[in-house]
Each structure stands twice: as C-alpha cells, then as structure tokens.
C-alpha cells in the first residue's frame, strides 16, 4: 500500500512547489482570466468579440510600453512620475517636426526617440549621480515637461499627422489573400507556436544535458499544449477582424527583448541586484550609478515611444496628452507583482498587470459604468492585488 501511494504524494508536492514558487505570476494570470470571464458574461459576449480584442490592444499599447520601462525603474527601487509628461512632450515635438516642419516621418520618429533618451539621461543624472530621490526628480520632471509641452504647443493642438505615421497605431499587417479571415494572422500564430515549442524543447534538452531535474513530462506537455492553444485562439480571433495590428508586433518585440535582457543578460542581473541591495551590489563590482542612469535613459526612450504611439492614435498632439499615464503604468507594475522597495518584478508581470487594468477599463465602459465608478474600482483592485501579494509573501516565509 505504502509503496503505491508514495510516488503519487511526491508528484503532488512537486506540482504544489512549482505552483507556490510562481504564485505571483500564476495568481495574476488567473485573476486576469477571471476578470475577462466576468466581463464576457456581464457584457453578453461583447468583450471577447474580435473587434473589441483588437481595440483592447490599440487602447492599451501605450500604457503597456510605459509599464515595460517602469518595471525596470521600480526593480531598481526607484519610481518615475514624469513619463506621462515626457510622452506628451515627445508627442508635441514630433508634431512640430512632422506637421509644422514637414520632416520625413522616419527621421522625425528617430529624432523624437533620441529626445526621449536625452530627457531620461537628464533625470538619470540627478537620480544616479547627484542622488536626489527619484520621486522628487521625476515629480519635478512631471511639472517641467508638462510645462514645456504647453510652451511648444502654445496651448493648441497640432494635427493631422502624415498618413504613414498614423499607421503606427492604426495600421495592420497587410494580408496577401482576399479571404474573410486574415491568413497572415493565422500563419503568424502557427509560426509562433512552432517557435515556442522548439525553444521549450531545446531548454529542456539543455537542462537534461546538465543533469538537472526537469520535472514531470506530463506537466511539461500540458503547459505546452495550453500555451499553443492560447496563442492560436488569439491569432484566429484577430484574423477574423482585421488581422494583426502593427502595434502588437512592436509590443511583442519589446516584451521579448526586455524579458530576455532582464532574465538572461548581465545588465538585467545587475538591475535586480541593485534593487535587492544596492550597497552589496556596489561592493560586488556592480556599477550601481551607471546602471541606474541607463535604466532612466531607457525609461525616457520608452516614454517617447509611448508618446509617439499615443499621438499617432489620436492623430494629434495635445497639451493634455498623457495625463495620468504614469499612474496607470505604476499600477500595472504593482498589480503585476513588482515590489515597491525594489528587487522584485518582471516584465511579463507588468504586462499582465497592464492588461488587468486595460480589461477592467474596457469591460466597465462596455457595461456602462461611469468614469467615477471605474476610478474607484481600479483603486480597489490595485490595493487588493498588492495586499494579496503581501499576504502570500508572509505566508511563504513562515512555512519555509
């Protein structure tokens, strides 16, 4: 009897361990799925309609881009309150380049991103080298760049942008067939699935080569099947509307690149180390000032990208653009499991957190809740998500 039950018990415990280790991320994915399901029911099936899914992506892309940069800043133990203003400023400058000066859109976009980077360098300098708390530096930046936005725009909106530029946030990857469903999207889903399967298998093989515990085979394949199913369901939904939005490709690339950098490269390790214990990192040879500086430069660049996306979507640069973007981005990071004291957080988590906020916004609007209720509910969700996180953490330490 006992010999029969033993292996089962062991299996259960590894499954439990795996779940426990990733409870933040799994917990948030489950919460996201739950919220989506809830609004799918409440809206009578509107939420998951292809057109709405496409809209969701377009509506949230600029916040998600900001969240990617913000999670890096938060992991280093800082905060950036200025990103909304930077986005507005860069949007305004790009409008002047393209609309007033008739500059080539590509040159204008590159120039705008460089300006974003310079703004990031300005803030990074004060935070990293002069050691002024980021809260203060970026609070100043929030006011400064909002003011500059109004100055360069002279209080007016500038529009319209050239057609090619607008395509950034309203364009779709062109299809080569004339069928009702978008073939490119479907093919992209299949290609992605294959790519995913290959990398997973290669990772597993590498782990085997080093004689690591690779976990249960059944679990591995279940996870793989689930992920492949989700990818293809998603692309098929997109295909049945207008295909893959251009912006989704950009977003996808950013997520992949930043996840890779944070998990696999020295730079990423150093960012986590600084957030975990800046003094110890410094004494271990991490160039803490330099890394902090570049994290802010990066934030400036992504804020510029976000500002360009937003300007393209609105087809105008306005003085009030980007208001409260910083708060949405910060909330996304914290909902996604980042720690306010630094050292903890993932790009993927921030994206999930951003999507939770996005789905909430979208779902509540579809249900017809007013902006007043929306604000309040989002506030509560943020609080509860972080409370859940802290509860888990405390529970985790006592049991170890």
């Amino acid at each position, binding site marked *: 009897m006992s010999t029969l039950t033993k292996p089962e018990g062991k299996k259960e415990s590894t499954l439990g361990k795996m779940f426990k280790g990733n409870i933040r991320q799994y917990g948030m994915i489950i919460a996201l799925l739950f919220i989506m399901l809830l609004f799918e029911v409440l809206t009578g099936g509107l939420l998951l309609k292809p057109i709405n899914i496409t809209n969701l992506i377009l509506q949230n892309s600029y916040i998600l881009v900001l969240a990617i940069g913000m999670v890096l800043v938060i992991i280093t133990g800082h905060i950036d309150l200025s990103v909304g203003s930077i986005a507005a400023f860069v949007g305004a400058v790009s409008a002047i380049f393209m609309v007033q000066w008739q500059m080539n859109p590509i040159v204008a976009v590159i120039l705008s991103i460089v300006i974003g980077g310079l703004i990031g360098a300005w803030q990074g300098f004060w935070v990293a080298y002069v050691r002024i708390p980021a809260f203060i530096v970026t609070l100043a930046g929030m006011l400064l760049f909002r003011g500059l936005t109004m100055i360069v725009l002279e209080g007016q909106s500038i529009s319209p942008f050239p057609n090619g530029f607008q395509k950034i946030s309203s364009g779709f990857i062109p299809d080569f067939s004339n069928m009702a469903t978008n073939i490119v999207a479907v093919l992209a889903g299949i290609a992605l699935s294959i790519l995913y399967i290959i990398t997973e298998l290669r990772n597993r093989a590498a782990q085997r*080569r080093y004689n*690591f515990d690779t976990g249960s085979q059944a679990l591995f394949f279940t996870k793989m099947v689930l992920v492949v199913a989700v990818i293809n369901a998603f692309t098929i939904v997109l295909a049945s509307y207008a295909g893959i939005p251009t912006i989704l490709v950009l977003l996808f690339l950013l997520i992949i690149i930043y996840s890779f950098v944070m998990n696999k490269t020295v730079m990423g390790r150093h960012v986590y180390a600084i957030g975990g214990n800046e003094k*110890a*990192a410094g004494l271990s040879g991490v160039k803490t000032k330099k890394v902090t500086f570049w994290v802010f430069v990066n934030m400036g660049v992504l804020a510029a990208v976000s500002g360009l996306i937003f300007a393209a979507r609105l087809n105008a640069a306005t003085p009030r653009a980007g208001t409260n973007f910083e708060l949405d981005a910060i909330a996304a990071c914290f909902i996604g499991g980042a720690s306010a004291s630094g050292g903890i957080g993932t790009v993927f988590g921030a994206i999930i957190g951003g999507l939770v906020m996005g789905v909430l916004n979208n779902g509540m609007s579809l249900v017809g809740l007013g902006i007043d209720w929306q604000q309040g509910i989002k506030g509560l969700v943020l609080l509860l998500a972080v409370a859940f996180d802290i509860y888990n953490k405390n529970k985790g330490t006592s049991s170890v």
Partner: protein
Amino acid sequence: MSNNIILEMKNITKTFPGVKALENVNLQVKQGEIHALCGENGAGKSTLMKVLSGVYGYGTYEGDIIFQGKTCEFRDIKQSEELGIVIIHQELALIPYLSIAENIFLGNERKKGGIIDWNETLQRTQELLTKVGLNESPNTLITNIGVGKQQLVEIAKALSKEVKLLILDEPTAALNENDSENLLQLMLEFKRQGISCILISHKLNEISKVADSVTILRDGQTIETLDMHKDEITEDRIISGMVGRDLTNRYPHHESKIGEVVLEVKDWNVFHEQHADRQMIHNANFNLRRGEIVGIAGLMGSGRTELVMSIFGKSYGKKITGTLIKNGKPITNNTVTQAIDNGFAYVTEDRKNYGLILMDDIKRNISLTGLGKITKNTVVNEQEEVMVAEDMRGQMKIKTPNILQKTGNLSGGNQQKVVLGKWIFSGPDILILDEPTRGIDVGAKYEIYTIINRLADEGKTVLVISSELPEILGICDRIYVMNAGRITGEVSREEATQEKLMTYMTRSSS
C-alpha cells in the same frame, strides 16, 4: 569619600539561546568613584550594562541588582533612569535635526499642561551646558556640532535626569585626543560632585588616568577587581587579566608555504567620509606575500575596516592617498570593478547589509561578482550558473536543500559561506576577510578556517581582520596590529602572544 557601596550586582547570569553571555558576574561600585570595566570584545561588558540599565528587563536574567541599598527590578530603561542610573551608549542616540535643547529634553519635556515651556527648556539647557563646559547655543542643531561636542550633549542629557550613576560605554572611541582629555577631566569633576561613574574603555591609558578601581571580565565571568590606588597596577597587569585564557584546539593545523611579496601598501592615508578633517588612517604601510595568511588585530574603531575598504576600490573614505604595488607594479583601485579586476576580494563584516542580496537565492548571490565568467556576449549561461553554484555549495559545505534557497533564510554560518563562495568564484588572488567568523557557531568557524587554509595552499593571499585575538593567533602567519588609525606593530607567528598584541592594540603610538 565614604566607602559605602552605591551599586552591587550579585551573581548575574544571562543566557541567550545557546550562549551564556554572563555567568555569576559580580560588580561593586562605590559611592563617588570611577569604576572601569575592562575586557575583550564579547567579554560581556555591554551585556552587563544592559542588564543594569533595564534593557534586558527583570526576569530575563538571574541574580540581584542592589542600588543604594535597595534591590531593584528594572523592567525598562525608564525605571532605571528614575533612580538615576543613566547609560550613554557608544553610538550616540541624538536626533541630528533637532536642537541641543530639544535633544536634551527629548522624552522628558519641560511642559505645562501638554504644551512645551520653551523658556524653561532653554534656561535649563543653558545651565546644563555650562556644567559640562559646552559653549554652544541651546538652539544649535546637533548635526552642526562635532562628535566631541555631541558626546557632551549626551552627558548634559544624563545630568538633566538627576544622574547618580553614569555609565559611559567607550565614550572616547570616536573622539580625538583633545576632546578625550576634556571628557576625562569632566568625569573627574563629576566625581568631585559625588556622581559615580562606570567607564567601559579599551584605552588603558585613560583607565589608569581616571579610574579608582577596575573590574575585569573575560568570557562572561568576573576575573578580578583591582584597586588602582592600593597596588601598583600597570597596563600590563590589566592586559594579562583580560586575555588569560588558554588556547584549545579550535584551529586546524596549517603550515603556510609563503612566497614572494604580492602586495605592498605604502603611505596610505584616509579621511572620514562625512567629516573631511578627521583622519581615519595615518600613513599605513604593510605588505602581503603569496600563500600567506596575514591578520589585522585591533579593537573596534581602530580603523581596520576603513583601511581595507579604502584599498578595495575606495569603498570607504575621502582624500585617499598612498601607493599600491602589486607584483612589483603600481596599480590603481579607484572603483570596486578595478579592484576585482586587480584580483582583490573583500568579504565584509556585515554580510546582511553589504555582502548578500537577501531576497535573492544562493545561486544568484554566488554568480553576481563573477558573472562575466559564465557570460557570452552579455548573455548569462544559466546552466553554467547552476553548475557553478552547485560546485560552490559542495566546496563550501553550505548546508541547504538546494541552491534556490533565499539567502535571507539561511543561518549566519551558511550565509558567510555563500559570501565566501561568491568571492572565491570571482577568482581573486588577494582575499580580504573582515570578521569572517562573527556571529557564527563553532562548527562553522572551523570549516571557515579550513577554507582559509585551503585558499592559502592554493597560493592565494588571505588578509584576516578579527576582533578575537585567539582566532588571529590561531590562524595567521603574521599579524599587523592597529590602534586609532595607525599600524602600531607587526608580529610574526612565533613571537605573537595575546599580551603582546593587546599591548600594541591599546598603546597610542608605535
């Protein structure tokens, strides 16, 4: 002066989990005397004073405290202060951005119906400042006055509480000679006014100057009480009381194969990070040889950590001057990265704050410094990383189920092994270990000594800083002694004795 006893501590025993910090300690302080308390670091002086002042409340220790003829049961500091027992700790407990007057009456505010009476506060402060001879306005902020004056404010604060027994824990450790002298004079003045004092100090010259009697503690026990007036008590007499302990076999036997000189430090001067006019290291000169284990002995605050940290990529100090010569060539260690590239490693004395990233696992802590070795085109090879960490876990005998444990959850000994492993992985040839066995149990200590010996056998140079003299004597081939920012002596293994080291450690010049 009458001979009646103001304080008697009888058979005090205090145990911490696993350690007996005090065992049947007896202390008698006479009315109006300055009573010095001596002993090595960890001998139990501070613990005894914490028992006396109520930091460790009644019931957490055994034995009796009799103050002015009455048995006392202090549950907190407040209760002992009410009777006039005031302790001034080594680290001053002043709030930097409050004024002198506010600090003196903090928690003891002069008030009428809940509203602070500033006139009385300022007037009383002025009186107290005159008493301690501090010529500053009561409204001056603490941050604007030097350490010496801050010490006087602490004393004024004690006086404001109608002090009968003043306890000073290393009061001159952070002071320069002038300020120290003033403080000693002030203590003598208090004595004339009938205030009794307990003085904890490592500076034997100060003790022989002002103390009436000396009680020596060693390993949590009272060794003896000496009357400074009756017998001819020399500094050597006190030292032999402090160290008279025989060495048991707590250190693995080791014969070093010592090679050529690897590092020479010449005319090394370092100033304090905040107070730019305070020189922390004065003209230090020393050298290290291949395969050698060198010790730096010295009391806390003697500048040992400051010396090595300033060498390790200027991690400490300002206005650092001097030359580093490694393998015959001058080198610069301006940043930690340069120091690591030059083959240095520094294992900090404060592993929790400066050594480890507690929220990260063992693997990531071990790989952090040497990340470059398992990196290709800036991408970390995670499989390689696991192998390295597993290897270190085996080498260092880190007792943990796996390398994914958070270092914050490990015991002190295992944490120290992780820090050591991390630096060994970075591949240094000069390892500086600052208090490598502080706060870890005897078994783990032995393992760490074994690791140190192995490193020396591999031809690396190990520099060990330790406050425990037996440890220094047990593992080092050669010992430098520091006191007050100066290297006051160099002793070879053969001629080293605790008495000799203690003499260099407490004498002010070489």
